[in-house]
């Protein structure tokens, strides 16, 4: 199932709706990579609240997406990792090193506001 990507101001919000297959994650990566350019987005939120498991493949993909978007000039924040899912990731030794994480959408937006704060071109 494809992940819908919403545009919210200067940010993109990818809200995962159901359990994802590997192909869905790859599709998400490609779509985000393109949309960040289309909308000149400075920040991306990936909401993983519904994911029941984040395994090594999903971790690698999320990390890859965040690093790729960073190279495109956008900050990424992963929000909504459930407590049990986080615990399983720790047990598996999986980390989202170098990737922003926040509790929920609200915190994610606050994180991006902080991260993408910069002087605009006309100095205002």
């Amino acid at each position, binding site marked *: 199932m494809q992940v819908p990507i919403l545009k919210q101001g200067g940010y993109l919000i990818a809200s995962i709706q159901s359990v994802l*297959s590997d*192909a869905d994650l790859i599709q998400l990566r490609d779509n985000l990579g393109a949309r960040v350019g289309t909308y000149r987005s400075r920040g991306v939120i990936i909401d993983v609240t519904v994911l*029941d*498991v984040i395994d090594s493949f999903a971790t690698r993909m999320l990390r890859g997406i965040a690093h790729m978007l960073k190279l495109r000039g956008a900050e990424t924040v992963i929000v909504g990792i459930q*407590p*049990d899912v986080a615990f*399983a990731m720790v047990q598996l*030794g999986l980390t989202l090193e170098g990737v922003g994480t926040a509790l929920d959408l609200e915190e994610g937006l606050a994180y991006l506001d902080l991260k993408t704060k910069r002087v605009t071109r006309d100095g205002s």
Partner: protein
Amino acid sequence: MEAESQTQSQTSINSATDIVTARQRGRALALELGFNGADVTLIAAAISEVARNIVDHAKNGEILMAPLQNGHSSSRLGIQIIARDQGPGIRDVAQAMQYGYSTRKGLGVGLPGAKWLMDEFDIASEVGRGTTITMRKWKR
């Protein structure tokens, strides 16, 4: 309600989509057996890793899941998951079980990670014949 949902289930693993199916079945069985939420997630994650191992290295295989009973008591006490394939096998099992070792471009955490998630983990592999992983988790 699915009939015989507590009996052994068998899931063919032929593609990445089957990984999701296997872990959802494992999650359902673990829930039925009364595992707590954290353990259910650990079991689902372990299934995800061994299923992925099949897809990545053997292409095809299967995952068998069954409740485990204590020999003397009729109460169900655990879950057993067997992942088997007739793939190329693992030349050096000890090396494959090393954290961070991967023959592919993976993180190399799948198999050792699954071992950490479960209470018991056994891997038998023969080059050219395939690999069988048996893992168990007991209710606390």
